């Protein structure tokens, strides 16, 4: 006789803990792969997991194995069609020999390893250890949003908030304290009376018992099972909720001097920042502002893929950012972040205006403003005009951060550097 058991309802994902250990182990390779993959996506298109392929070294599990290209072996293989003793066979490509009966001893290809990571795993790995700077200080703002929080019990409330456990506990202790007769006591009395009535042996005792029962029944009626004083309700208090939405301004110079490659670098940086913010805030909006000598608010595709010609003026972009903030994103309700990418070109006459705008109307409002100078090439060692202008501001204000990015490989290190909390920096 066999037991048949349905295990389908048992918890699944028993390997989850193993998977986490595996991902941690493969972190370096996974990060490289993720970094590679991140260039192919749209900035906002991060829904769903990512198929990633990582090299298998580092995840290799070594064991004592026999070298496939040493010594003498005898292979027995099936399916002889024409061979007789003494025939020779050219050695098959890729070692082993005699068909692939030797093959890879553990039956695994160890070159590459492809698997899927979920979006959360992807981002966890990506942003591990990174924090938004000065988040606490600025986040506690006046806010009109409330949320409910449990706050003990109350004696009044709506029936849907009735706390049965508390209520019954009160009821029980009151019944015990007031000596309310229990149901079974009365039933026992009933039985005893019944017996005495049938046998008729002890009329004296029968009368006593009937009297006792009457008094007990009266007491039961007088003391209710549940009294209004027993009743308790769950109590909720409204509490202020910190602002949980953010807006991110992406500013980019799209004048002729910005090459596709520079834009690609900028795009990667914007994408990282967006992903990062999205994990910290419930709702993140994006505003794209491109500029040449004039500034325009555009959608994402236009932002990254269309070209403009013209001179380069930074101040109109900052002005526009300020206008948009005033019009649509009141600081009471929004956390504001800015990211600017540029090759550093600015009309020299515009630099004082830019500095002033930045210092007076942007930095006081934003949580953080990151300036990324892309490309540069041979000019890298000479600070650009814009860089010099910002540098002075950055010295006095920790909300402005600036970095140079030359190649794709720089993006992620720079990003990590920006958001690694100071106490974790070695």
């Amino acid at each position, binding site marked *: 006789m066999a037991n048949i058991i349905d295990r*389908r309802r048992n918890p699944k994902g028993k390997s989850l803990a193993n998977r986490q250990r595996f991902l941690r182990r493969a972190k370096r390779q996974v990060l490289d792969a993720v970094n590679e993959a991140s260039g192919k996506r749209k900035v906002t298109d991060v829904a769903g997991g990512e198929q990633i392929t990582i090299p298998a070294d580092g995840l290799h599990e070594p*064991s004592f194995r026999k070298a496939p290209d040493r010594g003498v072996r005898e292979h*027995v293989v099936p*399916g002889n069609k024409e061979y007789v003793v*003494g025939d020779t066979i050219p050695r098959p490509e890729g070692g082993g020999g005699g*068909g692939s009966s030797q093959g890879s001893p553990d039956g695994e290809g160890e070159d590459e390893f492809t698997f899927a990571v979920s979006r959360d795993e992807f981002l966890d790995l990506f942003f591990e250890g990174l924090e938004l700077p000065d988040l606490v200080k600025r986040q506690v703002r006046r806010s009109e949003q409330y949320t409910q929080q449990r706050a003990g019990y109350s004696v009044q409330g709506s029936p849907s908030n009735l706390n049965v456990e508390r209520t019954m506990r009160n009821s029980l202790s009151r019944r015990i304290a007031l000596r309310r007769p229990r149901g079974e006591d009365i039933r026992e009395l009933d039985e005893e009376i019944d017996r005495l009535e049938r046998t008729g042996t002890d009329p004296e005792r029968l009368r006593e018992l009937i009297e006792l029962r009457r008094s007990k029944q009266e007491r039961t009626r007088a003391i209710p099972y549940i009294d209004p004083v027993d009743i308790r309700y769950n109590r909720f208090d409204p509490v202020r909720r910190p602002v949980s939405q953010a807006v991110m301004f992406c500013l980019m110079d799209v004048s002729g001097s910005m090459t596709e490659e520079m834009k690609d670098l900028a795009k990667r940086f914007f994408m990282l920042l967006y992903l990062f913010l999205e994990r910290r805030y419930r709702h993140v909006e994006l505003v794209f502002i491109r500029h040449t000598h004039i500034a325009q608010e555009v959608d994402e595709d236009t932002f990254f893929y269309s070209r403009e010609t013209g001179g380069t003026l930074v101040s109109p972009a900052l002005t526009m950012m300020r206008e948009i903030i005033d019009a649509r994103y009141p600081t009471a309700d929004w956390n504001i972040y800015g990211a600017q990418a540029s090759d550093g070109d600015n009309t020299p006459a515009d630099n004082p205006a830019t500095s002033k705008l930045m210092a007076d109307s942007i930095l006081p409002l934003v949580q953080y403003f990151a300036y990324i100078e892309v490309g540069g090439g041979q000019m890298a060692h000479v600070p650009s005009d814009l860089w010099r202008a910002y540098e002075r501001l950055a010295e006095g204000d920790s909300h402005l951060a600036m970095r140079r990015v030359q190649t794709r490989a720089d993006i992620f290190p720079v990003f990590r550097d920006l958001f690694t909390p100071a106490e974790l920096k070695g």
Partner: protein
Amino acid sequence: MAPNAAVQQQPLFTGSDWDYRDIMRVYDAIERIAKEELGLDPYPNQIEVIDSEQMLDAYASMGMPLFYRHWSFGKQFARDEMLYRKGYTGLAYEIVINSRPCISYIMEENTLTMQTLVVAHAAFGHNHFFKNNRLFREWTDADGILDYLDFAKGYIAECEERYGVQAVERVLDAAHALMSQGVHRYPKPQTRSLREERDREIERIRYEEQTYNDLWRTVPGEAEAAAEGNPVERRMQRLGLPEENLLYFLEKRAPRLEHWQREVLRIVRNVAQYFYPQKQTKVMNEGCATAVHYYIMSRLHETGQLTEGAFLEFLHNHTSVIFQPAFDDPRFSGINPYALGFAILQDIQRMATAPTEEDRRWFPDIAGCGDWVGVWQEAWREYRDESFILQFLSPKVIRDFRLFRVHDDAQAPELVVDAIHDDPGYREVRRSLARRHDIARQEPDIQVVDVDLDGDRTLVLEHRVVDGITLEKGDALAVLRNLADLWGYDVKLYEVAPETGRVMNEYPAVSPEAPVA
């Protein structure tokens, strides 16, 4: 034992959907045939229905219902899941565990015909083999394995909490690298308990007192030499060298390991030992299960309990399970253990009932004896793959598979066919095929031979090279590094040709980089 096909019964089922009553009915019918006609003696059965995700879970933990945690299982899971989701591989219809009760996992999406096949295959075929085969009886503890795994999982989780995940992972990584060298290949004499040791000591002293003879003292030379002894030999004896079970040696002798680290090594070693019989009996185990399901399904069909449609569905699956691609087929990946095991067992049945002249010459005991069930039972009980092939692989099966042997000398530019399926070749082919299934011969024979106790505690290993096949260098070095980390001091490896004692290859001493202790 001749089955009487005359009795026609009602079909057990007609559709492909199933519920628990169906499975019970099928199980009872199978049990009747298995016990009455094949004389199978399995552990009590526990059949558990699971879905594909749970099957993948089970894959990732060596097919066991519970297992300790390690990243390599996560890697396995990620790989299996990917292959499965992309449709490169299907999942097994079942997984069966050598335990009492014997647990068989069956997939929910199997049709009722497949469930019938799976119950016959796993719950009776494999199960009988687990309970009766000598290797499993001697080396595995079906009663205790699930409890032990539960303990192991809990113990390792506790270590992770106490000493940190990384620290435990280091030990497990190193231990896993040595897993193939973590088994006892031959039974050891039972170690004596302390009480027995004491009794023996008392007995010996009394014997010496009784047989004391002062004259012995005057015999020259002998006594002195015995007292001195050879220091190397004394050391070897004290350390129990040579020792082929590297994990056992480290667990007992590594000087710097902490208690919990020894226990972790012990867990890995016990798991390796538990699975060792399965590695040695792949052909037999699958052959047994396949032959049993084939017989039972055929009998169910003969007696009318299986409809024609269901039987055809079964045959379709059965033939794909025992399909053996030829060596030049792109699907070829070695000899299919299902095919070989099944073919040999079927051939035993044929020889016992309808022998040819050749069979009488090659297998006088079996040919025409009629009692093929008896021969099967004997084979299942007493043999492992190597001895099974050596004993029972007949010329007919060699011809059917068109087996031939290729001599592959890594030095030579070409491979040479040196035996085929003809009279001079049968024995050669058979012997080589048996050797290929001899795990002790296929896995490198590596032993601890010495420890420099007076010097720097260097651990000396020796690989006894078979057929000139040395170790793969990159991997060997990686394993040696792991070994050194466990040992805590330098480790050396020599590769030695056992016939001549010539050192073929010498690895430089590997020092521990990140000792675990």
